[in-house]
């Protein structure tokens, strides 16, 4: 198969040869590796890669994917944003598309079904290209096994080659993309080439209010699969009606190249074994549900996790793979009074929206950033996070499980500029809308989000996306979650713009920035639980009047709380050419036009991760006894 540039234009092409999404579990070769937290089945490809930047698809070099291509001139760090290495202009824009006023574009099939906008991105002058190359030898632990490569985040469309062979294509910038490399892989002297386009039809689905970057901005790794391998793990812990006992059911999807067996161990938080069972290996192994007489429930105050360990053996008893996973028991539902109940208690969301941000490296963030954010959450009574407006780094979900942070796990979807123009609702070319052409792509985003993160107790809500209007396609995303998961609620704010879909979209009534009076008006006749997925816009010197919302929460149990907009200012450290000092810059400071300037500075944290003065107010109100 050969790579085709026209895929960039076609919303129906969003993954080619990409492996199906699966749970985010990590496999280890031995139990000792689990303790050390380092798997010999994984080889990081992070670091310096050869690099070529091209202003647009037309001027990029030919044959760059060939193993003997000699045109690589530069090096770039993986992971990083191409713009932060000064190849392309840094640009911040909010609701408009980044080509506003520069290129006239309409989404494929949006105005007339037959107009597929051929060449819209593949022939575009604004579609910059990063070509990456890395040479590698296989680490010892990977040799002789099936090998895949995993890109954890690439904006916005990637083509992949290995040793001169085309491997595959992926979109959806914020979820892992995996490809099987085994057929063309050697033990030594492998050449992997990745071509990253800033724009594709997916750009219409990724119009989030943020700096518009491109590149391999999250880690890349090789992952080995032994002859018997747990490809997918689906844990289904349930809590009984008495909230005392519970059940653990699970489904495993195995890849088996030989016969064998596996053991399933469950231990409590003190490592006392509760379950130890052995199963023969089948392609799909359903583990029989186990009753727990008493379950220790998980919540924000007591994020109690049980330890699951799956060990995979071949017939001769050789250990092939160890899969640990910490899970929790909790139950979320809506009662007859339209109150969200977690473990039979009213759910109170003291939340924030959190973009992934580091003022030195943009959306390439570190473990230290994440840990510091969790520390800040805990120190200030923040108990919930909305992953605005895309899935976060994999580790963030584990940190939320461990620290009792309730999650609203949002899909990578925002098409703001297709339906809202200068504040007015104008959905003439809205995507995904009810367009059949765009449905598979957005459903794939829902599926990937679900399959990847389904085992995290912290996730209480699946959020269908942000500010994308509402019609059949988003209703289908809602249905996808309902069909696959009865342990969580669905959330989508945008349906308030198109009330006809209210019955099909979102278990909760969600608004953003609705003033207290409007909130109360709804709460007097609530027929769904209410929350503000964004409120208290913390831009500059702000967060005044929060008490009016907190008063309403006391009065109306149907009010579940909200997520402050947002956690951290998005601003970028640069060296001031006048003073030589390191200073913070925002939209427009890079001659980037049209810009929304300082509008990305809405955090309750400054971009340098120190708290704004308003934090003491947040801490006070979020710490009040409820």
């Amino acid at each position, binding site marked *: 198969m050969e790579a085709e540039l026209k895929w960039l234009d076609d919303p129906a092409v969003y993954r080619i040869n990409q492996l199906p999404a699966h749970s985010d579990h990590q496999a280890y070769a031995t139990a000792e590796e689990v303790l050390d937290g380092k798997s010999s089945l994984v080889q990081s490809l992070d670091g310096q890669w050869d690099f070529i930047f091209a202003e647009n698809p037309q001027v990029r070099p030919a044959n760059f994917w060939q193993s003997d291509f000699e045109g690589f001139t530069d090096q770039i760090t993986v992971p990083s944003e191409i713009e932060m290495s000064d190849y392309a202009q840094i640009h911040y824009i909010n609701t408009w598309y980044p080509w506003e006023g520069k290129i006239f574009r309409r989404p494929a099939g949006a105005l007339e079904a037959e107009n597929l906008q051929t060449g819209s991105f593949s022939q575009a002058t604004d579609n910059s290209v990063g070509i990456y190359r890395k040479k590698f030898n296989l680490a010892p632990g990977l040799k002789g096994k099936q090998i895949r490569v995993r890109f954890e985040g690439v904006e916005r469309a990637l083509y992949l080659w290995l040793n001169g062979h085309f491997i595959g294509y992926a979109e959806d910038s914020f979820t892992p993309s995996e490809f099987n490399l085994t057929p063309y892989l050697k033990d030594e002297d492998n050449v992997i080439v990745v071509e990253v386009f800033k724009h594709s039809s997916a750009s219409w689905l990724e119009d989030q209010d943020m700096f518009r970057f491109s590149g391999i901005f999250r880690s890349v790794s090789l992952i080995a699969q032994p002859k018997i391998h747990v490809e997918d793990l689906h844990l289904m812990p349930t809590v009984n009606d008495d909230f005392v006992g519970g059940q653990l059911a699970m489904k495993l999807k195995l890849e088996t190249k030989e016969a064998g067996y596996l053991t399933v161990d469950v231990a409590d938080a003190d490592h006392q074994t509760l379950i130890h069972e052995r199963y023969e290996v089948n392609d799909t192994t359903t583990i029989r549900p186990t009753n727990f007489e008493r379950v220790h429930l998980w919540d924000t105050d007591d994020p109690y996790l049980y330890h699951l360990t799956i060990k995979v053996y071949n017939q001769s008893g050789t250990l092939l793979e160890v899969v640990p996973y910490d899970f929790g028991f909790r139950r979320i539902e809506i009662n007859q009074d339209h109150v969200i109940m977690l473990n039979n208690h009213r759910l109170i969301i003291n939340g924030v929206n959190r973009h992934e941000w580091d003022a030195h490296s943009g959306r390439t963030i570190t473990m230290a950033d994440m840990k510091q954010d969790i520390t800040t959450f805990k120190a200030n009574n923040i108990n919930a996070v909305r992953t605005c407006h895309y899935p976060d780094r994999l580790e963030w979900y584990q940190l939320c499980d461990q620290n009792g942070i309730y999650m609203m796990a949002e899909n990578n979807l925002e098409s703001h500029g297709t339906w809202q123009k200068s504040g007015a609702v104008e959905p003439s070319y809205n995507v995904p809308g009810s367009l059949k052409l765009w449905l598979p792509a957005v459903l794939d985003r829902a599926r990937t989000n679900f399959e990847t993160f389904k085992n995290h107790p912290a996730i209480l809500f699946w959020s269908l996306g942000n500010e994308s209007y509402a019609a059949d396609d988003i209703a289908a995303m809602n249905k996808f979650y309902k069909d696959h998961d009865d342990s969580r609620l669905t959330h989508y704010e945008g349906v308030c713009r198109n009330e006809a879909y209210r019955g099909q979209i979102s278990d909760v009534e969600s608004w953003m920035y609705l003033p207290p009076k409007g909130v109360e008006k709804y709460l007097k006749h609530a027929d769904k639980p209410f929350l503000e997925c964004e409120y208290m*816009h913390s831009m500059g010197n702000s967060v005044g009047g*929060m008490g009016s919302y907190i008063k309403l929460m006391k009065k109306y149990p149907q009010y579940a709380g909200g997520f402050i907009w947002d956690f951290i200012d998005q601003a970028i450290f640069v060296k001031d050419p006048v003073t030589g000092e390191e200073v913070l810059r925002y939209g427009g400071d890079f001659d980037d036009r049209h810009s929304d300037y300082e509008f990305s500075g809405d955090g309750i944290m400054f971009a340098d991760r120190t708290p704004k003065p308003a934090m003491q107010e947040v801490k006070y109100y979020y710490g009040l006894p409820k």
Partner: protein
Amino acid sequence: MDYQNKLHVIYGDGTLGLQGKNFAYLFSYERGGLESLKVAGKEWLYREPKPTFWRATTDNDRGNGFNIKSAQWLAADYALPCTKITLKVDDHRFKHLPIAPATNQFSNAEYAKQVKLSYTYQTLTNPATTVKVSYKVKADGTIKVVAKYHGQVGLPQLPVFGMRFIMPTQATKFKYEGLSGETYPDRMAGGKPGTYEVTGLPVTKYLVPQENGMHMATKWVKLTRATTQNNADPDKESFSLLFKANKHDFAFSALPYTSEELENATHHEELPPARRTVLVIAGAVRGVGGIDSWGADVEPAYHISAEEDHEVRFEIKLPEA
């Protein structure tokens, strides 16, 4: 000199001098305010304190157009003509300001128990209104300041009302009894009462410089400096001045910049090098709002109506020897 608990009154031709143990004040007739406030030989004033009305536009102010609706107050803050000065020494109220030749019968040994001056300012607004600032000076050097804003129908809401003191050099620290952190009327529930000391004059690092550093519900604030502009004063010992609430708590901010200087900068590095201390003691502070940053107004309870009267009163006290 033995003052015997009385003020030494010096009838100058352009100023009224008041002196006592450890202090010397000059109230100017020409410059429309208190020109010099010298304590233990250290000058505390760079220019005459005046009423202040403007706060550097916040993102929310810009979003809801408050800076446009209330733009008149920027002009009023920028330039404020003094239209009337009155003087009362003990029980004697002067019909005209006492300058030569009317003062020729006085000597260098004039004393009083208490002197009161008032300055009336007229705002550059349409319609105009007035603010009367009175200073009552006692023999121990304490100055009771009362600034009264006169409400005027038809004026847009006020960003702030208070007195602004600009001091010649930067304070090294300030200490106050009030609430923790930066607080505003609609964002002070989380402020913990206590006594706090702040080093330097920190400007809150909002991405675009704007109104910042307010401290609500304050009982007193003591500023400490270590330097002067006096070329003959090599001393680097710290010295302090106390501002104490009178009847009602006040709000204050202590920054190196005026609201106009903050207003002009789009980034922190554009602010001028910090040189002075700008102390605002406010009797009325507008809330900051926070529902959104593109239209939502501050809640009505935290507006400052310019159609109603406002006042701020406090005492300037010498540090206890």
